[in-house]
């Protein structure tokens, strides 16, 4: 099954300065490599900050476009991993290893399995 691991955290917590961010990079690289080696990695990116986001909703046939992210919470989406594992517990194992899991949240959402036939 494919799972999207959505990485969210409050921008006020976690690494703040350039030095702190640089110190985190090896942890991310190591995890990505571990996932690739295990054959579970399908994709993953870091996202630009929420100020660059745009949200679109369609209501009554009208497109409603708004500035910023969709959710009114302190935590903002910072990135994602797309992985494929046998079951939820395995996906959760990988999610637990994500460096930002310590100071933020990881939402694990199954991807719709649309048959291609």
């Amino acid at each position: 099954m494919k799972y999207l691991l959505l990485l969210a955290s409050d921008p006020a917590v976690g690494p703040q300065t350039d030095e702190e961010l640089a110190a985190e990079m090896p942890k991310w690289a190591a995890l990505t490599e571990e996932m690739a080696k295990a054959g579970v990695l399908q994709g993953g990116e870091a996202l630009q900050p929420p100020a660059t986001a745009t949200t679109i909703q369609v209501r009554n046939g009208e497109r409603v476009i708004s500035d910023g992210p969709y959710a009114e919470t302190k935590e903002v989406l910072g990135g994602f991993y797309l992985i494929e594992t046998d079951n939820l517990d395995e996906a959760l194992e990988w999610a637990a290893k994500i460096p930002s899991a310590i100071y933020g949240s990881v939402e694990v959402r199954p991807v719709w399995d649309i048959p291609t036939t």
Partner: protein
Amino acid sequence: MDIAEVFANEWHKIVATVSRDFGDIELAEDAAQTAFSKAHRLWRSGLPKNPGAWLTTTARNYAIDTVRRSKNYSDKLALMRDQPGPDEANELLDPQLSLLLTCCHPALNLESQVALTLRLVGGLTTDQIASAFRVDSPTMGKRLTRAKNKIKAAGISVDSATHETLLERVESIRNVIYLIFNEGYASNSTNELIRGSLCDEALWFAQLLCQLDPGVNENYGLQALVAFNDSRRNARTDREGLPVLLEDQDRTLWNPEKIGQGESCLRHLNRQQPFGPYSLQSLISYEHVAAMSFEDTNWQTIYDLYTLLLTIEPNPIIQLNQYVALSYLENTLGVLDKVELLETELSDYLYWHTTKAQLFARAGQVGKAVECYQNAVALTSSESEHRWIRRQIDKMT
């Protein structure tokens, strides 16, 4: 043995086996349901020699037929587990334990864990569970359906739990059992479910866990705690249905069998292993059931056990309970000062106010006691709690 007993003993085994073999919990539920319906019809003239085997075979046949008729036949075939090889068999858990772990998976919300466990392991019907939790049947039905859908959609495994899984998540199972007991204890209803009331069901689950996952202190602790607390069932309420305090209970009404069951669990506790919260709470509960009368209660031991409990579960309610024990060892007014210090955390907690009231009453300060009882009234909308509080006030004035 009659079919009701067979059902009570075998339901969860059938659901677990089919769940393990077919990797599909909903199919397992339907298969078990069908097998028991058939049994009701065909066993009128008497039970077969091996009812468990009869039911398992019938359920599996139903499952195989269903899978054959389904559109994703080849996919389902792939899901059907071949007999595990020797390595795999050692790795994998008993299917009954697996089923418990699935029902109590933390990805499901607590209400769903409780409902699913009662349905798939306990074998209670949706109506029975609804009535036990005082919601209507359609609501409970939806809760169960959503839970089963989540298991499918999120890929919660039903058949691959290992010993490592158990170590990580057995706490969820204990938590669900305790919640079931708590609900039964609080509602004090006498629903006739499968094994009796909701408390009886909880005790059955606690026993089952000890059988499936033996040698674990917390499992025995939970069973003992449930057994000891439930042993007081007949003494806990008076003829008007109002609660009777421990100090006023007629101890001849306590159930000696349940006490014996709890004591037997305590003998299984292994002192070489750590004692977790359930183990400690069961030892505290034991001090009460072991005392011939309230006056004979060994408060020092209870106090010491609370000290241990607070090191692993430092919370204000447990602290309050320790202070109550302390009040029987030391000066009541001194303890009242300590209880006051818990105000920030517990000012919304009914029993903080009633405990203070009782302490003031024991210290002879009736006016302050009444004041505390009046503050307590404001915190509950329960009619029976109001009546009980008013009665305590009347007794003093």
